[in-house]
């Protein structure tokens, strides 16, 4: 009973805190904030099992797994962005960076969130802030004006003989 009460109070506080004040100016990039009509009730009431790091994986296996998980995303925007990012950085990431990247692309349940953080439409939660997030944000800006029409083919990994 007390648990239910506490939950209700927490929900209410959550909703009040996250409701955007309409007086806020809208940035030129269309800052999303929390849409006023999204109570996030499903995320609060139905928590999913927490993500945990995989044990006993060599760095090579981690890279191979993260390659698959970068290329196969929920929507095209992330498929293109993350597979291009993986092509540029995955094979030279240190162990710490690999673990940061693993958490970034595997823990969030809504693929769109990763996209909004990378495009700076939404602020990055503290748990994901760090080297890799900064690299991703910089990469997304596309200062070199690369053509980003599609995800790259895999053959850049083919070093001739395995």
């Amino acid at each position, binding site marked *: 009973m007390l648990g239910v009460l506490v939950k209700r109070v927490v929900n209410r506080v959550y909703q009040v805190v996250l409701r955007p004040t309409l007086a806020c100016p809208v940035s*030129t990039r269309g800052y999303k904030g929390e*849409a006023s*009509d999204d*109570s996030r009730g499903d995320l609060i009431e139905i928590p999913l099992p927490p993500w945990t790091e995989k044990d006993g994986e060599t760095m090579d296996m981690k890279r191979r797994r993260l390659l698959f998980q970068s290329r196969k995303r929920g929507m095209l925007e992330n*498929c293109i962005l993350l597979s291009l990012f993986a092509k540029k950085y995955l094979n030279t990431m240190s162990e710490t960076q690999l673990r940061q990247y693993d958490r970034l692309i595997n823990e969030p*349940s809504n693929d769109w969130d990763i996209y909004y953080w990378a495009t700076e439409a939404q602020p990055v939660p503290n748990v994901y802030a760090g080297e890799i997030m900064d690299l991703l944000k910089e990469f997304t800006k596309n200062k070199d004006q690369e053509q980003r029409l*599609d995800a790259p083919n895999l*053959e850049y990994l083919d070093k001739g003989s395995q």
Partner: protein
Amino acid sequence: MMAGVSRILIRRLSSSQSLPPSVRCCSRNFHFNINGKRDDAKVSNDISQYPVVDHHFDAVVVGAGGAGLRAAFGLSEAGFNTACVTKLFPTRSHTVAAQGGINAALGNMEADDWRWHFYDTVKGSDWLGDQDAIHYMTEQAPASVVELENFGMPFSRTEDGKIYQRAFGGQSLKFGKGGQAHRCCCVADRTGHSLLHTLYGRSLRFDTSYFVEYFALDLLMEDGECKGVIAFCMEDGSIHRFRSKNTVIATGGYGRTYFSCTSAHTSTGDGNAMVTRAGLPCQDLEFVQFHPTGIYGAGCLITEGCRGEGGILINSEGERFMERYAPNAKDLASRDVVSRSMTIEIREGRGCGPEKDHVYLQLHHLPPQQLAVRLPGISETAMIFAGVEVTKEPIPVLPTVHYNMGGVPTNYKGQVITHVGGEDKVVPGLYACGEAACASVHGANRLGANSLLDLVVFGRACALTIAETGTPGEKLSPLKPNAGEESVANLDKIRFAEGTIRTSEIRLNMQKTMQNHAAVFRTGDLLKEGCDKMDAIYQSMEDIKTFDRGIVWNTDLVESLELQNLMLNAVQTIHSAEARKESRGAHAREDYQDRMDELDYAKPLAGQEKKSFDQHWRKHTLSTVDIKTGKVTLGYRPVIDRSLDQEECSAIPPAIRSY
């Protein structure tokens, strides 16, 4: 170095056969434990040297998108020991991309009736939809939305606390005579994500077993009955046979057969291909929906919700050209009508940009606040992929492949059917739902926001039908010990393929051919040429070259298997399109511009003689492929024109379709 590691892993797996199952499972703890269940899987060595693990379940669902999760949840809730096999983590299924919403005649914005929604869907399908399935879907819609709300989906609300409903293309009131209907319910801009999160979370409470990052290879068929699925675990390269009396296919669409599409790189038609390899037909694959507003270049989708909120399409002369093509619905006409209109404008020289090869979607006349709150993701997508500031400039857009109306043919209960001796016949043990299935509720063209509805209604229907026709804990019929051998042999062949043409090259050839020969506007010569090219590309798969020989996390292998699946979808699509000599819904032909029904509905019906079945085209295409030669064989089955209950809801007789 990679090969060395994988060799060690395989050796470890096969040498562990003498260990008891509980110890062996420890190295793969996370699969069998993290989501609650440990089943008593046994390791055998029946198929070649790949260790095979056999599982027994009451039901297996392939795919964990909206439809798969709804089916798995429904089955688990009904007490069936259910496995869900998916190549992606459930909340990363392509359903997460859905930002539009779910249609349901709740009547919150104005008086509404599900029979009007029924009419809109039948008309939207250009009378190729099966009216019993459409009746079922539209009647169940309000209850389904309320049910989802009860599960915990936080639908956006109006100021009086009712579920907010917005306008969407093709939705009208009073059988098309009462103006635009507002039927689309949404959860802010993350309806798809909320659906996945809610269903996945709830299904875990009922002990559903998830096998995540397992790639389903084939159905296990014996004597025309489906006895389960064989899959391979990407994490450790082991083969798994999921034996069950009930298999549900919910693997989504196959947009990736085309060069430009709005789909993620996961939409590879795996379910359709599994069904084709099992010798069963696929239905209506020629009906590919082109979404009017994909970003020119990358193909990323700009949701129809933009037009629902007031966005308009303009040509190089700044004209709102949809007023000419669809005087009533204008920019919210059905998607195929809008796509064709855009293509005509471009071909007649009123396209925009230096090559005059696209049109513009204008949003900057809308208040920035409305854009930010109702359509936030648009700004980012437009900036990153088109370099456009939506509050100032229009977005360059082009009709882009978006949805596959066709798929695995089912009846309205979700059971997979074949057509034998002029009758529909159920395939025992096999079900399908979602984009992978063809019930057919969308017929020749799907209305926006009807797809998420399709997922939940038919995902639930599959679960209900299975619960009606079976009981949990039923004993399984025996299966040949070497069942699934060919699938493993194929996997092995692709893994060590040493041809001369790379996977990416063959894939590009296929995508470009489909894009050039089977796009929005089709014509006989172009289609025929495309068929010949596709046949040759199919043959070139024999010469495929892969480079990664490992068995663990081998993305090259997975993408090559996906290419095999795409190939089967592509050849059936283009051959079906070439054979269909009429224009209907999303299938538009320049050489046959009219619909060819059994009667000419443009003229008074009195005195007309009905055409025989082989002389008209108001029928479903059924296609099969001879896997070895790539030869496509076509057959046809009639459209179901009766609703489930004529008293409750009269079927809509065909008419000319205008908006």
